[in-house]
């Protein structure tokens, strides 16, 4: 009876997702406490503060009227983002390999695209107090231009997210498709099966290069320094997330940690061939990969300033070329 429930694929997926979700909530804290604070020679917050306690606290805050032309859509976007990340994780579990339409690279790329489009919409719909709406007599006699169009700082952020969709996410997608060259299939089931026979793709030349490309793509899609141009503190403050308060901010914070874990899981499926499931010790590999990625990202982001468009374009271009190289080597 009990075993029947456990072997039920839906229950298995739910259990896996729950375990991954709980672990993912520690990741922002680990990055902040053990990497950033340590590098900066200070004590730093407790590990559970940024990832678990902050969302919980936001849950208990009172909701506010968000300032947005379409408040309903704006409030729904973080939930959409969360569901997208959840879908990516479900697609990675071995139980999902029976549904080829879900467990394929095309669907994962599609989900990630939805995530990116959400940033654009969030940025375009957020009208925070910090720029145009700040009550200040700007247009007075003697001002330089008295009839210019006004933009909120989030509008720049939305425009940047749009730009990131067009070229920013190339490295990640190229890296995602690099294992296809070895496995000759875009279905996750085949990729995992191929690697379980031939050994991890990570330890081939193409795999090694693609892993580097994947890591940079991972930082770009997570908007971590130095690629955090859509939420650079020096001009757009928090960019798309400006107006989220209370429960919606809690979802935003949780999604970030969860996304870190899920991208780590994507790596371990595509490059090591270990899908996340609680029925094998392989899940430890997933956790280890997620942790290593978070620590590496923390170290990298602690030592670089934010990149402007001027540095971003060459960096992404170089990484993209590297990704193409990885695919070419894989094909040869």
């Amino acid at each position, binding site marked *: 009876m009990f075993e029947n429930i456990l072997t039920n694929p839906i229950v298995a997926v739910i259990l896996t997702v729950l375990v991954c979700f709980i672990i993912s909530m520690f990741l922002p804290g680990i990055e902040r406490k053990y990497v950033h604070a340590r590098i*900066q020679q200070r004590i730093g917050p407790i590990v559970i503060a940024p990832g678990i306690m902050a969302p919980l606290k936001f849950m208990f805050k009172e909701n506010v009227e968000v300032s947005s032309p379409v408040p309903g859509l704006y409030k729904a976007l973080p939930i959409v983002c969360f569901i997208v990340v959840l879908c990516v994780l479900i697609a990675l579990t071995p139980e999902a390999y029976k549904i080829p339409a879900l467990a394929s690279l095309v669907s994962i790329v599609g989900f990630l695209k939805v995530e990116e489009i959400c940033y654009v919409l969030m940025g375009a719909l957020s009208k925070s107090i910090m720029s*145009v709406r700040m009550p200040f007599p*700007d247009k007075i006699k003697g*001002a330089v231009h008295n009839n210019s169009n*006004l933009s909120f700082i989030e509008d720049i952020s939305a425009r*940047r997210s749009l730009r990131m969709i067009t070229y920013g996410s190339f490295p990640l997608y190229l890296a995602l498709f690099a294992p296809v060259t070895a496995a000759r299939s875009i279905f996750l089931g085949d990729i995992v099966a191929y690697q379980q026979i031939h050994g991890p793709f990570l330890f081939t030349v193409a795999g090694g290069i693609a892993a580097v490309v994947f890591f940079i793509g991972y930082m770009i899609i997570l908007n971590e320094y130095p690629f955090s141009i859509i939420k650079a503190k020096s*001009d757009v403050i928090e960019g798309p997330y400006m107006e989220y308060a209370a429960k919606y901010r809690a979802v935003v914070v949780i999604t970030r940690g969860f996304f870190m874990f899920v991208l780590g899981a994507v790596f371990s499926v595509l490059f090591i061939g270990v899908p996340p499931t609680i029925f094998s010790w392989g899940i430890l590999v997933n956790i280890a990969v997620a942790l290593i990625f978070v620590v590496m990202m923390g170290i990298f982001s602690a030592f670089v*300033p934010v990149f*402007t468009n001027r540095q971003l374009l060459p960096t992404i271009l170089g990484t993209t070329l590297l990704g193409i190289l990885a695919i070419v080597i894989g094909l040869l």
Partner: protein
Amino acid sequence: MDEKVPRSNIIETEIPMGTVHPAALEPYRVRFFVEDEIVQEAEITIGVNHRGIERIMEGLPVEKANALTEKICGICSNSHIWNSCRTAELGLGIEITPRAMYIRVIMGELERLHSHFLYLAHGCEVLSHETFSMRVFYLREIVMELLAMIGGNRVQYGCSVLGGVRPRCDLDESKLLRLKNDMDAVEEGLTGFVERFLADSIVMSRISGIGVLPQKQAIELAVTGPTLRATGVARDLRTTMFEYDEFDFNVITQNDGDVKSNLIMRALESFESIKIIRQAIANIPEGKVVNRDWEMVDTDIIESYIEVPRGTLYHSYALESGRVRHCIIRTPSMANIGAMQYACIGDQITDAQLCIVQCDPCFTCTDRAIEIIRR
């Protein structure tokens, strides 16, 4: 002449920032006129923190007015009280005791150190380089503790009084020893930071060529202080001030006028400050710290210029039966606002706040004498 002319008169969009913004700790409003994320024009509105200090000083006894000038600025508070005392001393012909002069120089240079460290840390913070910012803030704490040791407060020390310095600020042997040891620690830390900073190619590529202020334009805008020296003009009032006659130091200049040369400028100038403090510790004369042997007379308008961390500071007032009349204060940031607006032009909007920060703005200093006309 003007090398960075806006490309067109039609402005695509305007992005206002402020009065509360993470990159600008002080309240001011800045409007960026932007075309495809490139700043075409910038307009800085100050006057947000106008408090009317000169109006409060009007008619106060000169000792009280001197103490009040400290409240103009929380970064260079010592410079204001120093220059205000200096003004009265020039007018009344008060001789300052040599020991007091040395202590004033030590305080002035310590303040320059803390102001420059704040600049470096804030610059790194606007660059979003949290680690470098934290390291400089850690160094800055050593200087802050020294200032607190001498003056008794971390920010407003009230060191100078008419004729010398407060007896509280006298330096005994143990204080001098601590000063000496901490200068070694600061120099060591700063050397490490500068080496690390200059070797970081990512940071260097990020800041070189950003916010360029050509020398010609800087002279035309009457820019002052390290911002001017970063464009290659060796103009430092300390070379003409009698307080600094006995000290040996170099006037640092850089050539490019961009964020990189401004940051390096401040770092190198900090080493010169450490050098001056060391000379002062070694040669500090014995004697009284305050000369109380003077008489109050009525004077004409007296003027005094000194070099403060941000540039030239001007105080002037007349004395009328011991009270301050016709007070005018001109702070360096006032002259540098033009440079801030100019430096932004042609750069990414992500860099725009950095271009403002590179001129080391202190709008709290600047917002005093601007008349706000309200209907």
